[in-house]
């Protein structure tokens, strides 16, 4: 049998998911010393995952990561098979038959639950839905958010919570030249929200924003950031955390909160964004629609860097009709692939998928959020995908197969039998060009197509 990874017998890899991790995995494979053919499967007609539909529309510079992905896609060893859902259109078994290896980079598409009564009341939304909606993700374009309330609450203090809060805090003028979906711009133009409360379960020294994201709240044209000075008192363990030189990011965040607390409030601004700490929701109250939230005050316990929030028994109520839960994402299981229910990830050892007994499952690999959980930013996934691909290349000998693998060809014939339309990167470029043209008229970087049908009709 010819060695795998040669011109005669190239390593055939399917990557499931075309977000950053998928592209970085493809890049690492293509740049490796072995001959590869990489097919990236994507359930939407549009690639780039959360760079397209997660990164906030007012962060256009971050979206330029796409330029690198486009360069990767130019490689003759790269192929996109989009508009195809693994698990329904194509099974994992079929992928295993067609490829030497499969890398799952399908991200964390679902949300962690608060686990409190009333969570499913109308008016209680996940950050994911809202982010998907303003970013024109086809799954969320028909969502409706009641923005007619004075007060909005965001639970969570990471960058997604910051994005949601910032979008609610900005004026239409601050958003209209971004690639925000038109339906979202129209709805936000009618928003009555005046107060945005961003609430964390731990203290100001443990907030997970990046300093850059937090700093933006000090620069909004019609919204003032508010932090109460008394909320910035630290326990000795938190003080110790901030003194640690390597924890400079938390120190910067804390300093920004201090800066916000000392600001002369600009009374000309019509909105306020409050950052509050040490509170956990206990119950969401309302008949069918959210009316108020009961929070329990917390205190921190444990040693530095391992402090957790413990309820004190003291409760406070906040009247609000709209809540966004942003306490983390979790992955969705794929049939035929092991899944860790409690973490919402695919169990793995450095990217090699493992079963319930911790044994490596041949052929299957994973990278990105579905591998390690929803942490880090775009670039973090590069190191993560590189690690996975290094393992895959080490396994080369084991991945060689006595039966011939036919890669994309096998997949196309299966899709054709089922009359499932698949699109490639060239097709996508037509959608891309059309979106940019539509955006030009409105002085936006692009106007996204928000339905699969619309995208497919552009390709024809």
């Amino acid at each position, binding site marked *: 049998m010819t060695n795998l990874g040669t011109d005669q017998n190239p390593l055939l890899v399917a990557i499931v998911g075309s977000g*950053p991790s998928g592209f*970085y995995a493809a890049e690492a494979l293509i740049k490796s010393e072995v001959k590869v053919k990489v097919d990236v499967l994507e359930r939407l007609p549009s690639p780039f995952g959360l760079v397209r539909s997660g990164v906030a529309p007012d962060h256009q*510079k*971050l*979206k*330029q*990561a796409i*330029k*690198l992905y486009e360069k990767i896609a130019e490689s003759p060893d790269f192929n996109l098979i989009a508009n195809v859902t693994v698990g329904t259109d194509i099974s994992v078994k079929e992928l295993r038959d067609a490829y030497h290896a499969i890398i799952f980079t399908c991200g964390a598409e679902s949300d962690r639950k608060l686990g409190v009564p009333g969570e499913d009341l109308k008016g209680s939304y996940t950050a994911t839905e809202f982010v998907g909606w303003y970013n024109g993700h086809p799954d969320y374009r028909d969502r409706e958010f009641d923005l007619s309330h004075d007060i909005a609450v965001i639970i969570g203090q990471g960058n997604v919570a910051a994005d949601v809060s910032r979008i609610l805090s900005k004026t239409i003028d601050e958003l209209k030249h971004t690639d925000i979906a038109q339906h979202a711009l129209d709805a936000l133009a009618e928003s009555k929200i005046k107060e945005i409360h961003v609430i964390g379960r731990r203290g100001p020294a443990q907030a997970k924003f*990046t*300093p*850059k994201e937090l*700093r933006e709240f000090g620069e909004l044209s019609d919204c003032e950031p508010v932090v109460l000075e008394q909320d910035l008192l630290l326990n000795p363990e938190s003080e110790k955390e901030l003194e640690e*030189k390597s924890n*400079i*990011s938390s120190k*910067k965040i804390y300093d920004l909160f201090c800066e916000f607390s000392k600001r002369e409030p600009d009374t000309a601004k019509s909105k306020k964004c409050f950052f509050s700490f040490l509170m956990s929701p206990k119950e969401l109250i309302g008949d069918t629609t959210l009316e108020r939230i009961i929070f329990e005050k917390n205190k921190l316990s444990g040693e530095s860097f391992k402090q957790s929030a413990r309820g004190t028994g003291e409760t406070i109520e906040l009247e609000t009709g709209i809540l966004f839960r942003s306490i983390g994402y979790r992955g969705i299981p794929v049939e035929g692939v092991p899944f860790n229910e409690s973490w919402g990830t695919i169990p793995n050892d450095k990217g090699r998928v493992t079963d319930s007994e911790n044994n490596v499952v041949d052929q299957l690999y994973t990278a990105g959020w579905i591998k390690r959980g929803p942490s*880090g*930013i*775009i*670039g*973090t*996934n*590069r*190191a993560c995908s*590189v690690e996975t691909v290094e393992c895959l290349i080490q396994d080369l000998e084991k991945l060689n197969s006595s039966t011939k693998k036919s890669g994309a060809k096998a997949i196309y014939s299966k899709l054709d039998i089922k009359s499932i339309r698949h699109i490639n990167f060239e097709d996508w470029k037509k959608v891309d060009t059309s979106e940019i043209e539509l955006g030009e008229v409105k002085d936006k970087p692009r106007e996204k197509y928000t339905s699969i049908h619309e995208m497919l009709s552009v390709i024809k």
Partner: protein
Amino acid sequence: MTTIVTDNCKDCRFTDCVTVCPVACFHYDDDMLYIDPDVCIDCSACIPECPVQAIYEGDDIPEDKENWIEINAERAPNLPVCEEQMDPLPGAEERKEALGF
């Protein structure tokens, strides 16, 4: 807004930053790394990776390091891209200690 590498990198060149750069915008010479401002997307993933805190972003750049904005912009485009982590320069650990890290 721009993200830059400053003098703490000099004679260290740990390159931990390179592994998390989403756009491969780090370039290197014999002494240190530089960021190409035309390629960098200011995601700040690299900042916490640096063991000697040599990287700063926009509003955070100390006044006495502002000259590095120009140095990065001038040198980076003419130097090779650093795409993968390299071994730190000899003496990097000692320098790191001397810098107080």
